[in-house]
């Protein structure tokens, strides 16, 4: 069936089963590899995207349920040439080890800063608790989100 939605600011029309996971559509139909497979169970947050501005898991989310809605992936925030202030803050803090969790975490942080531009440490931690990081980079990630907030990283 044909499903229409907006991805990273562009209108997209897809001929795909309505039950296909949003993550598969992003990665395989739209070649947006920044949203990552970690569990398929909505437990780890590697696949996090913004759906109408809200951070949501995409791994078990059926594409049919986002018809007509707006999806933003990490590619929609910035590029290597022109990174988003959040992405830049992560680079400045070197807030990564393996980096697999980072795109999902940046999406969660984006949703947080959009609704709360001046979050406390407790706010940040609460917003990131749906994301797992296995390398133990947590303290740097929290510092990066704080730094982005200081620099006014909304938009």
């Amino acid at each position, binding site marked *: 069936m044909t499903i229409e939605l907006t991805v990273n600011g562009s209108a997209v029309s897809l001929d795909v*089963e309505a039950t*296909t*996971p949003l993550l*598969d559509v992003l*990665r*395989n139909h739209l*070649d*947006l*590899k*920044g949203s*990552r*497979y*970690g*569990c*398929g*169970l909505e*437990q*780890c947050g*590697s696949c996090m995207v913004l759906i109408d501005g809200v951070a949501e898991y995409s791994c078990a989310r059926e594409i049919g349920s986002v018809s007509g809605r707006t999806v933003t992936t*990490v*590619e929609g*925030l*910035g*590029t*290597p040439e022109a*990174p988003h202030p959040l*992405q830049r803050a*992560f*680079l400045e803090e*070197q807030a*990564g*080890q*393996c*980096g*697999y*969790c*980072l*795109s999902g975490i*940046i999406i969660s942080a984006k949703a947080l800063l959009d609704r709360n531009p001046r979050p406390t440490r407790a706010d*940040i*931690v*609460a917003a*990131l*608790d749906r*994301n*797992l*990081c*296995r*390398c*133990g*980079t*947590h*303290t*740097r*990630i*929290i510092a990066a989100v704080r730094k982005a907030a200081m620099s006014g990283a909304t938009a």
Partner: protein
Amino acid sequence: MSDALPLSILNNRRMDKWLRFQPDRTVKLAVGKVEIGQGVLIALSQIAAEELDVGIDRIDILSGDTADAPDEGSTSSSQSIEVSGRSVRLVSAELRARILGRLAQRLNCAPEELSVEDGAFLMDGNHTGYDYWSFSGPEDFAAEIEGSAVPKPASAYKVVGQPVPRRDLIAKVTGAAFIHDIVRPAMLHARVLRQPSRGARLQALNEAAIRKAAGAAIRLVRVGDFVAFVGDDETAVQRAAAAAPGHATWTGVRVLSPLQQEAAWLRDQPSDDRHIGDPGPPAETRVVVSETYSRPFVAHAALAPSCGLAEYRGGHLSVWSHTQGVYPLRNSIADILGLKRDQVTVRHAHGAGCYGHNGADDAALDAALIAMQIPDHCIRVQWRREEEFGFEPVSTAHMTRLRAALDDAGRPVDWTAEVWAGSHVQRPVFGGTMLAHEALPAPPPPPKANDPTEANGGGGTRNGFPMYDFPAKRVIHHLALETPVRTSSLRGLGALPNVYALECFMDELAERAGVDPVVYRLSLLSDPRARLLIANVADRCGWASRGPVGSGHGLGLAWSRYKNKAAYACVAVELDVDQDIVLRRVWCAADAGLVINPDGARNQLEGGIVHAASMTLKEQVTLDGDGITSLDWDHYPILKFSEVPEIDVVIIDNPDLPTLGMGECTFGPTAAAIGNAVAHALGVRIRDMPLTRERIAAALVR
């Protein structure tokens, strides 16, 4: 001279294996160690830039490639900077000296009159018109490395010791960056139906039901009891694989019991027994104390399930893997498939942090097996979450019983550590088997129990010997011949459970002697580097004003020198215990000699602290029925953002001492510091990890 050369150079003697000058004025540096999230590539690049005197941005590093990079074995055991870094330093210094030597002849001057500025050659400070790119010749690169050049003194370093940012993170925060993201021509997605256990036989497979579950056309590949689902629609093969176990009937599946998930189970198993250190029997004194500590089976639990890509074209098999060792994997795949080694190329691609031997190599073999059945396509195998948890090699359960004979002052005069554990390393080149190989018509013999030698730091015995000044010390190692599930290397091997035992026992002995635990340690420890770290951390954490025992608020401290020869770390942990343990603050000091990249080092130290805290508080692989039952993050919880403490790390600067591997040095001390802080908070000791709510409750009613 060559006796002193590191193994990496002995195995790769030609200069062009390591370094080349490229037409775009960059320097190709090829290394065998790979990026597994530890930031090794920027550190190795810094070393080459330093010795060659070229800008860091000119270093174009290639790592882990059996066609184009040297064979440096596996990226493991905190050896990358100690061994590969030392090699890159020697190789770079030698190339520079060789080329400058020839230039000095050409210019009829002494080599000492020449210098290098971002790759350009100067004589007495004036440009000569020559540089690496114009003046180096084939003879420089065909030469055998002799190890004859003298590297720079640390006092001359400009790039080494600086916090140079990593280059790989930009892709990781903006889009495609991992093996999982590679797209190749004619690519097909694949998933595997796993054989439940070695020796299990597939009696029946309802292919029609699996195809129906897939919902789109898929292809089934079957070789012996190895079954894969392949197609161009990843969603369909994923659905097929999720449904397949319910449509497969196996015989000969080994049955597991929850009893086997506890370390104590290993005590009654057949074992290979070794006695290391001072002769027995242990001395008897008026007071002999003994306690037993344990850690259960734990998982690497990489955030990304493993992935492998392979394509077989024109008689050559190309494989992409996030393996720790491209050459060992190339050899294993060639041997299993009956190919010549030069028919197989393995290239490293980034994966999620692995922390040891996880499913990476197995996924690569899966892809290779399928590629041989479907030539001229790139086969992409993506493991599922339950597959990673259920089938990756886990770290063995480990039990350590300590016995100390005390003098009248309560100080040990004789120390015995008795260890029961399965194999801590079972890589395919080390007695282990690869998963899919076991499902093939000619499976390998059962894996052989094995552990690294003492010279390589040991496995079950790692950090089993205390570095304290006890008159007599010995380790008795019972290496279990079999474990209920496959086991292999995970960050630190036996170091975490052994340091947990040792440093918790030291607190217990101090308490028995009526002496402050830090004072007690220092009275038994002459190593000056260790003493400095302990004093540093004790000072920073406010040890002198530590509160009373049993208040619910705890402060604990522990230290070790990883493998008793790598980096030193001391860690203090402050926490509260109510029903659960809440970590508040962690202080760490580490001494790793010359630090190449202090920012990367700090990242590794902090990562080790959080990882160890997670393992100590939460982690256990559970077993039942036909296998592992901790198959998702709900059943294998790890530390979350809200549970991570504030961490304060100090690196003791020692630039004139050799670099010591540090990726694993905080692991054991963190676990033991938590154990000691919990005992301080509760007034009772919990000796079996993980320190769960149930264990706390049980300890309090004891």
